[in-house]
């Protein structure tokens, strides 16, 4: 089933996928064991003439075993998940000194990208606003200031394994580092009105030289 996952092109995506695979095999094994047992029971203990059910009220040992086993599995899984989650979503753990900072603002039904320009400050004359097109260099840390001007949108780049809601009057920090140049879609993943379907931006990941050329073109020095 997991071959349906889109190709991963972010540094942290592999960690997410590894957890995905771990849970996939864990649940698959549990599923096969439970269903296998069920089917065996259904065949073996089907009603047969002259044969009665055994009077069994339960087993405290078994209850303790499966309660403890499930609890342990759950906590082990949680332990492996905390660092991945914090790495992706906790601003205190983001890589410092990003190579690129962009503000992305959802607006029915577009993504507005704002580059701070050479002065690295938003709200100044050298800001650059682009509709639905985000340009970043490959293998570089990108910080995004995510916001919205109207309703809730959700910034989703399937290949980066990144999704974050964008809220009006809030600035939410996310980051990524793309590992492969290319053009990727940025659908909106949170219902935002009648134009929700088709609200679509593009993430253009350039080789460093191409990105430098793009910057040069926009802000000639």
């Amino acid at each position, binding site marked *: 089933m997991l071959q349906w996952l889109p190709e991963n092109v972010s540094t942290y995506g592999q960690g997410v996928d590894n957890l995905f695979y771990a849970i996939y095999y864990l649940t698959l094994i549990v599923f096969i064991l439970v269903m296998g047992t069920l089917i065996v*029971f259904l065949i073996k203990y089907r009603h047969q003439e002259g044969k009665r059910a055994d009077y069994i*009220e339960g087993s405290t040992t078994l209850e303790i075993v499966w309660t403890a086993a499930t609890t342990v599995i759950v906590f082990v899984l949680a332990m492996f998940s905390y660092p991945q989650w914090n790495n992706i979503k906790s601003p205190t753990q983001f890589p410092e000194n990003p190579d690129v900072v962009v503000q992305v603002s959802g607006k029915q039904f577009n993504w507005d990208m704002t580059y701070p320009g050479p002065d690295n400050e938003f709200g100044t004359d050298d800001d650059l606003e682009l509709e639905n097109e985000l340009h970043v260099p490959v293998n570089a840390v990108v910080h995004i200031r995510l916001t919205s001007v109207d309703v809730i949108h959700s910034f989703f780049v399937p290949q980066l394994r990144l999704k974050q809601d964008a809220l009006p009057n809030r600035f939410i920090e996310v980051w990524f580092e793309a590992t492969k140049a290319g053009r990727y879609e940025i659908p909106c993943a949170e219902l935002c009105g*009648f134009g929700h379907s088709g609200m679509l931006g593009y993430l253009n990941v350039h080789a460093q030289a191409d990105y430098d050329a793009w910057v040069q073109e926009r802000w000639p020095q």
Partner: protein
Amino acid sequence: MHDNEHHHEESFISKYIFSLDHKMIGKQFLIYGLLMFFIGGGLALLFRWQLAYPDQPLPVIGASQQYLDEGEVVTGADRMWERIYESDKEEWLETNMPSGVITPEFYNMLFTMHATIMVFFVVVPILVGAFGNFLIPLMIGTRDMAFPILNMLSFWLAVLAAIVMAIGFFVPGGHAAAGWTGYAPLSADPQWTGVEWGQNLWAISLLIQGFSSLVGSINYITTIINMRAPGMTLFRMPLVIWSLFIVAILLLLAFPVLSSALALLIFDRLAGTTFFSATAEGGGDPLLWQHLFWFFGHPEVYILILPGMGIASELIAVFSRKPIFGYRSMVYAMIAIAFLGWIVWGHHMFQSGMRPGLGSIFMTTTMLIAVPSAIKTFNWLGTMFRGSIRFTTPMLHGIAFVSMFVIGGLSGIYMANTPVDIFIHDTYYIVAHIHYVVFGGSLFAIFGGIIFWFPKMYGRYMNDALSKIHFWLTFIAFNCTFFPMHILGVGGHMRRISNPQQYEFLQGFEGMNIFITMSAFTLGFAQLILVFNFFWSMYKGKVAEQNPWQVNTLEWEAPTPVPHGNFGQIPTVYRGPYEYSVPGEESDWIPQAQPEHAPATSGD
């Protein structure tokens, strides 16, 4: 022995309409739920068509290609559209699906109302309203609910809520289209959706439905605490009564939270407050809505599944002819699920902008729900272990419930896991998950429960051949409809989009969407068999004896049809509900009210 029942003549109205009898109110809720089930399902088929064949006219009522291309009237549907376009009036069909093509606005309204109706007007009314009303007094051994007039009020408030909800479809601007979760600010200000009174009526209707649930839950709790038959200790109650008791407590505590949120939403929309919108002038917060909604919403999810677990437990014990394996741990597991239900709501909000540290906490509490869920599943397996399983149609539904609940439970672990949820949040993965729990779980339990208790409700069996055809068609079509949605989710297919073909990365899923839609239509048509069988058997079904399945619990002690007041003499309870295949006994079942034996120790 029935001479002390009052046999006074009742008028048609007091017997069938404004009835105070818990059994009649239960049946009213059942028929109400089945009716709404068809409306909710029909809406789903409309948007499934759009997902498989985006922007193409619907079958039968859509215009033909010739008409769309050249304006040439070919079919009857073309004539209808011709007439609609020629009239000066803005007709409903023209606004919502010109030429039979579903507009994006109408699409949003369809899935919003599908979920709203299924959650609030089908599953809760049937599980809690119908089974709760019918079963509680009968199974604990009393003559009626504690407050019969409140009980009647509960039903008629639900009818009022349904009428208000139905009006919403026909007001200018259309019905609510902000999703059943009604996230603000989308739902809080008409300027974002163009929906005016539709969203208001949605909120008002749910407020009324909230009162209905509140009144019902007070009644259930009072009845179960105070009116149990002599000898019916709490730990001799059947598990379905335990589940309904726990659910009543959840309803009592959860619905007022939704009601408050809805009231604030109405203020935002009509009185200019800004509780849920973050504007420069107003100090509200959109996340407040999500916190309130899901603080209600997650217990609500367990309200939808716990009675299903209760019903499945009855079916599996009766048809395995064995006591429930680990009766007490089954009760404690349900209590644990109900308790955990209050501290997991944040898992709906992992990607919402909630503080990431909270995400880790909510992940831990959420994954802990796997523990009581596993306990229940293993105990159902334990109940079948060394049993004598009869594959009656209700049992088939019970087995289907367990299997589908296992899939729905396991798929929940993916979403509870915060890093994985980043990817699958708001994709078809969650759509698959909720349908495996609420359709695969609750609805199979409902179907099984209807067939199982039908002989007590109407004195007749449902037709078994039709029931079996319905079961297998539903089981196969259900899995063909919802299993592939997991794959769509893994591919990143967002929910609530009306046209997946707009996206490059979803191009490979067209065939799967068509397959799902075909399966969904099959699933929909299979339900017609159930409804036909239900109404046909009510009048023409084989007459049933008093206790056709040889069940221990008290509802089968009452004569069929059950008279007003239920029991001639209130039965005394001598043992737990699952004394099947007791060694040394001639019969493989000992009714709870059978006095010859010393009280057994089931459940201890």
